[in-house]
């Protein structure tokens, strides 16, 4: 048996404060079979980190733009920064933690008003750091195979796609990831558990699997969508 995980689980592993952190880690430690991951799923997790850090940088740079000429620069900056943090905290999906991280990194240079260094850090930090997410997954469980969206796999994926064209996935990337895994399962005759933390995604995939089973050409696709829950983790004991 083989299993794969989606980007929510990779992020869940990387983020200690994520509600999925514990479950995601247990999943990797308790599944004894082969872990395969789509390259595009890893890249999605990396991009997420970059995007969020950039959003935090934009907030910091906007405050700098307003305050850098002020005589009491540091005081003004601090006060506006606090206001922005408060604004962020009120948002449901906020980036307060990213603001805290970015601020922590640039703080010594802000004190010296070394704006060149501040800019350099904000520009470079995400790409210096985000690819290390991969290592965090590997520290828990070896990734036996990274699935590359090569030409042959793409061709198989494209042949499957029309069958599920009526199923509406919330994110187009989710559809693509699922289709690639179906193509991988078909090409390699592998049974594959695909585990996610998104219930709606699981329902969409189950609908797709139902349609595929009815089609002679694709009835051998064996992707089994699984929702990561405490019950599921308990069942792995």
């Amino acid at each position, binding site marked *: 048996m083989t299993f794969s995980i989606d980007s929510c689980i990779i992020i869940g592993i990387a983020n200690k404060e994520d509600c*999925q952190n514990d479950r995601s880690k247990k999943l990797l430690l308790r599944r004894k079979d082969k872990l395969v991951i789509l390259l595009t799923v890893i890249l999605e997790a990396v991009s997420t980190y*970059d995007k969020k850090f950039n959003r935090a*940088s934009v907030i910091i740079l906007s405050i700098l733009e307003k305050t850098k000429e002020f005589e009491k620069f540091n005081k003004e900056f601090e006060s506006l920064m606090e206001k922005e943090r408060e604004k962020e905290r009120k948002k449901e999906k906020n980036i307060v933690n990213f603001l805290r991280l970015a601020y922590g990194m640039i703080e010594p240079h802000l004190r010296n008003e070394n704006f060149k260094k501040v800019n350099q850090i904000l*520009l470079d930090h995400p790409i210096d750091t985000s690819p290390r997410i991969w290592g965090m997954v590997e520290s828990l469980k070896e990734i036996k195979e990274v699935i590359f969206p090569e030409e042959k796999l793409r061709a198989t994926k494209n042949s499957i796609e029309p069958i599920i064209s009526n199923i509406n996935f919330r994110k187009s990337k989710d559809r693509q990831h699922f289709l690639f895994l179906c193509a991988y399962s078909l090409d390699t005759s592998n049974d594959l558990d695909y585990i996610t*933390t998104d219930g709606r995604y699981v329902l969409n995939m189950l609908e797709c699997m139902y349609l595929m089973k009815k089609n002679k050409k694709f009835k051998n696709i064996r992707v089994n969508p699984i929702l990561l829950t405490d019950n599921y983790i308990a069942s792995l004991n």
Partner: protein
Amino acid sequence: MKIRKILDFIKDSYTSKVERFKKIFQKYINSGKMNTTIDTEMVLNSFLNTLFDAFLASLKPVVGSIDLLRKKHKDYLINKEIEALSKKKEKLVMAIMNASPEEISYESYTKVSEKFKEIIENPEFEENFKRIDKLFQDLNPEEQINLLNNTGKNIHKMILEIRDDISTKLIETSDKENMLILGQAFRCVDFLIRDLIESTKRKKHIDDEHISFCLNYSAVLLSKILAIYFNKINYDALYSDIAFITFYTHINNPHFLNEPKEVDDSLFTILGAEI
């Protein structure tokens, strides 16, 4: 300084570009930020020629080593071809963009060279590229390797210059996120070029898939940046390329990445579940 840039901008642009500039100009006046705001588009415009030169040099490395050709008294030949291709730059960029692989992976990008060949054989550019290729083929294998290495160093300098400019303008720009993405995309091009420089130090012959990957992906990434300038794609489209190249660099050339001071799990505790 700003007036000079505005004049350069008008001089170098086509009529449509001037129209676009008028809109930007109007935007600054309306927002009362004429003296403080720098648009990403203006930054790209001020480096348009450098950007196009770097793109051409990735596509045909001999273009990036005019200094070497000067020693052979052949620089006038390459300059003539660059000038001719510059007149068709939008068409060339779009052709490369259309040849870019749909999916992002090492394999799909190594295959891109076959599609590039078709573009180069397109009647519109064929004669220019044939003459450029001839200049390269006239060199012996050792000279070819030296030229690739030299071109890599020249592109690296170009990218550094652009990145420096982006870095100094980050605070004042009106579209900060786009400027950040742009700076990060240029750093990714630089990763590939440094990879090329290191590879050519080691290799004895140029028929190498890895060198081809570095050059082709640089060309793809630079063509995407140029396509942003021509309003064909948006900045967000670069995020997946940035992720792929940084990930590739992390695996193959981790020494290119700066080691974050606090490399531990705490860096990632801030990563939320939202995508």
